[in-house]
């Protein structure tokens, strides 16, 4: 391992040692011999790009991936632990707070704090004691809100603190926060960090996963960087000031390997698609999620959209493609120079726009149906003869695209749910090639598939742009953004932070803009 461990000054008293953790998914090694040590009473920040393995590591720790599904050892307070479920790790004093809060919106704060470990007396819930303890907890967290307020009626910042209160009420020793500040305002962030400092003073150890390097700098005692499922370095921030460029360099500095097929960069044609002053308001979150986006893509061009999780990239794609989440959108959209607006995804498909979703299992494919069914779903009109689908035509066309993207399956009638990730992704591609779109929006086109299949997906993309298609590619993988794009937009917190030519861009430069 090529890490430059800096020995901490004080004697090592580790509350947690994760040793040689390796976790594999079919075709992907998510964690590769990771070592992660947390000293008692410190605030330990875990940083890394999207997909570096931070969340996987925490899932191993919390028992979401039970003992036996990974290799390596978890040692807590000097004893080896074998967690089989989240309740095991909670019993050992570990609490994890995810970005998506696990609170019940309709229930009041005090009930949420003790939900799942209610205070009982004679087998019944002791509401007096619950209320007393909840009030004490809110005081400790400096929340001045009536504990009987339903959680849905308080701000996200307070919800975050209620979640922490819930963890503290379980006598937690090790508190893990996964991106706690991503959805918070500046003030709420500052407040949260102060609370963490106070908890540290009380002796609670804290692991903080964050993309926001400024707050990492402000609060970390130790910074561990993960990259591609490996521990890159663990830096002691109490000994010296760690600067942001150093962290970024460790996050992105991978050797560039030639995993991208060569492409003849032709001069791109006219503007195929453009949005101007595009904003979107999400009624569910009650806030604006996209602010005045200006973006265009030319014929035969691959435009990359980089950014961190939560930067609004998928929301941008969905708001363009038929706005199926019913955002309130404003701004202008042009297809080949003519103003358009897609009221539904069906309209977008009619206007020859296609969208390959980020999560093929959740909203990309009908897993219980076969390859042919999925491939033909967006453009059945092409197969109709009279009211009926022309079966020979359907089979012939499915076959053609099956071969064109080189899906490896027994036949076009294999159930999609039984295919590997790479082949499923090829089905997602093939289904959008049939309507012959002019604009193809790809959301994380190579997520969760192996390097060989990635390469094949890249080849398909190159073929498509060579034929004059325009591609917008959303990706969290910077090498992919750099290797495939002609032009790059960097998104940060719902806005376009920068636009650069791929030839001039570097991973560091993109990361700087994305972190904002």
């Amino acid at each position, binding site marked *: 391992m090529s890490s430059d461990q800096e020995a901490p000054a004080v004697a090592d008293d580790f509350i947690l040692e994760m040793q040689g953790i390796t976790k594999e998914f*079919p*075709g992907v090694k998510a964690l590769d011999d990771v070592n992660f040590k947390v000293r008692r009473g410190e605030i330990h920040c875990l940083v890394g790009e999207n997909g570096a393995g931070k969340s996987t590591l925490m899932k191993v720790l919390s028992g979401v991936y039970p003992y036996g599904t990974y290799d390596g050892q978890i040692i807590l307070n000097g004893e080896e632990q074998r967690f089989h479920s989240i309740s095991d790790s909670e019993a050992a004093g570990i609490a994890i707070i995810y970005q998506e809060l696990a609170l019940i919106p309709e229930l009041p704060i005090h009930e949420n704090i003790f939900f799942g470990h209610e205070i009982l007396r004679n087998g019944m819930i002791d509401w007096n004691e619950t209320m007393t303890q909840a009030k004490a907890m809110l005081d400790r967290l400096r929340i001045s809100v009536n504990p009987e307020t339903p959680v849905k009626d308080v701000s996200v910042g307070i919800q975050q603190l209620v979640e922490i209160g819930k963890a503290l009420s379980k006598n937690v020793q090790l508190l893990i926060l996964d991106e706690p500040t991503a959805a918070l305002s500046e003030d709420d962030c500052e407040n949260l960090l102060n609370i963490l400092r106070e908890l540290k003073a009380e002796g609670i150890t804290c692991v903080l996963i964050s993309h926001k390097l400024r707050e990492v700098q402000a609060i970390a005692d130790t910074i561990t960087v993960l990259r591609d499922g490996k521990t890159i370095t663990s830096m002691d921030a109490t000994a010296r000031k760690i600067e942001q460029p150093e962290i970024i360099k460790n996050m992105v500095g991978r050797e560039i*390997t*030639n*995993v991208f*097929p060569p492409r003849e960069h032709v001069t791109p044609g006219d503007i195929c698609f453009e949005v101007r002053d595009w904003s979107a308001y999400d009624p569910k979150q009650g806030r604006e999620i996209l602010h005045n986006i200006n973006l265009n893509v030319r014929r035969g061009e691959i435009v990359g959209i980089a950014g961190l999780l939560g930067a609004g990239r998928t929301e941008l794609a969905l708001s363009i*493609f*038929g706005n*199926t989440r019913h955002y309130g959108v404003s701004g202008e959209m042009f297809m080949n120079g003519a103003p358009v607006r897609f009221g*539904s*995804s*069906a309209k*977008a*498909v009619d206007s020859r726009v296609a*969208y390959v*979703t980020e999560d093929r299992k*959740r*909203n*990309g*494919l*009908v*897993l*219980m*149906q076969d390859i042919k*069914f999925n491939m*033909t*779903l*967006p453009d*059945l*009109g092409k197969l*109709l003869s009279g*009211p*009926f*689908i022309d*079966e*020979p035509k359907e*089979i*012939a066309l499915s*076959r053609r695209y099956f071969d064109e993207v*080189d899906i*490896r*399956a*027994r*036949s*076009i*009638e*294999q*159930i999609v749910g*039984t*295919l*590997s990730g*790479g*082949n499923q992704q090829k089905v997602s591609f093939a*289904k959008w090639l049939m309507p012959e779109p002019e604009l193809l929006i790809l959301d994380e086109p190579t997520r969760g598939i*192996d*390097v*060989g*299949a990635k*390469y*094949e997906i890249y080849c398909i993309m190159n073929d498509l742009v060579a034929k004059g298609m325009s591609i917008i590619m959303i990706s969290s993988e910077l090498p992919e953004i750099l290797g495939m794009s002609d032009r790059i937009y960097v998104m940060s917190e719902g806005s376009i932070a920068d636009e650069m030519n791929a030839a001039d861009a570097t991973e560091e430069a993109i990361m700087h803009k994305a972190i904002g």
Partner: protein
Amino acid sequence: MSNTQISAIRKATVADSTPRETIGQSISRVIRSNIRNSVMFLVLIIVFVVFAVWSKGTFVNSFNLTMLVAQTCVVGVMACGMTLVIVIRHIDLSVGYMCGFLGAVAVILMETVHLPAILAIIMVVALGAVIGLGEGMLIGKVGIPAFVVTLGLMIAGHGLELLSTQKTGTIIANNAFFLQLSNGFLPPIFTFGTISSGSTLVIGVVGVVLFVVLQISSRARLASHGLVVEDAWWFILKIVLVFAIVGFLVYKFATFNGISYALIILGAVVVFVASLQSRTRLGRHIFGLGGNPEAAELSGVNVVKVTALVFVIMGSLVGLGGVLLASRMAAANPTAGQGSELLVIAGCFIGGCSPAGGIGRVTGSLIGALIMQSLVSGMLIVHIAISYQYVVQGGILVLAVLFDILSRRISAATRVVDQPPATPAVVSA
């Protein structure tokens, strides 16, 4: 190593990995992958045999089978619509009372308003469609759960049914054409020996031959496209089974009154909905929406439109079912159709509709409806108290869904995943 080289290598590994299987393995594989459908037929046969023996033959005499088919026609027509509803992950609880109400409306239109029968029937089917459209819009567009909308309509339907016959009590239907629908039979045309309805025999024989020819040609077509077809022995066994069941029924009918008009109507509805399911764009959109609503919407499926259309079809078929029911009873009756929603929904689940949506064929639901109706009719014949009948019906429904879930797990577990990709050798290039 180039991309095409890798592909070639992988293709080779895939091709090599299919060893020849023994006959035993082949049987076990076929049974596992067809467990759901084969058991459905098995249950139907067992129900028939058990009641035939128990009732000392009464259950399978020509008269009773004719009655059984007449009852199944009403439930079966509605089960065709319910299949679509369940496939898109919804439910319609209102079909029992609504079919009673719509049947009463048909009778009133003829007897009180003195409309011609055909016009009354068309109006009732149209009324069903309009009610279905309302349901579909509330469910698909407004987003009220189908359970709530149709429960409300079920309760309202109860009231409407009572209201429609309140002044007069039971209204007798006298229109000859209307009564013929459920009670009339195809004219025999010719007779010989024990065969009292030659037309039935001809239709039966033509139907079976047509079925076999269609099956063989569809198999041949799939094979010609290089697609995987069922094992030959299973294919033949299936045809023999269908031949035996249909042949038995045709013989029974041909030696009695023959085929009823209601059965012909049911046949037409089944063919219509079955081809809608398998051969039209709407059918694909229905399966897509049921299988993964988000993916379907992001593939350009108009969710509101498809939901509304499914409920329009359901509503029309409830109207048609109501007409058949009123015709069979020759009256508008304040309690007609009550409880038949249970037979319809249970029939769909027994017939292989997945409670989670996305799966369900109208032919299966028809078998399911026949199983449910056979249980009802059989228990009546062997004098099981009505209270026990409900308990048995309820138990069968839950067992069917339990079995459905278990069998899907088994066939999912035996599925082969495609070859895992070779180690990524491209990186080093």
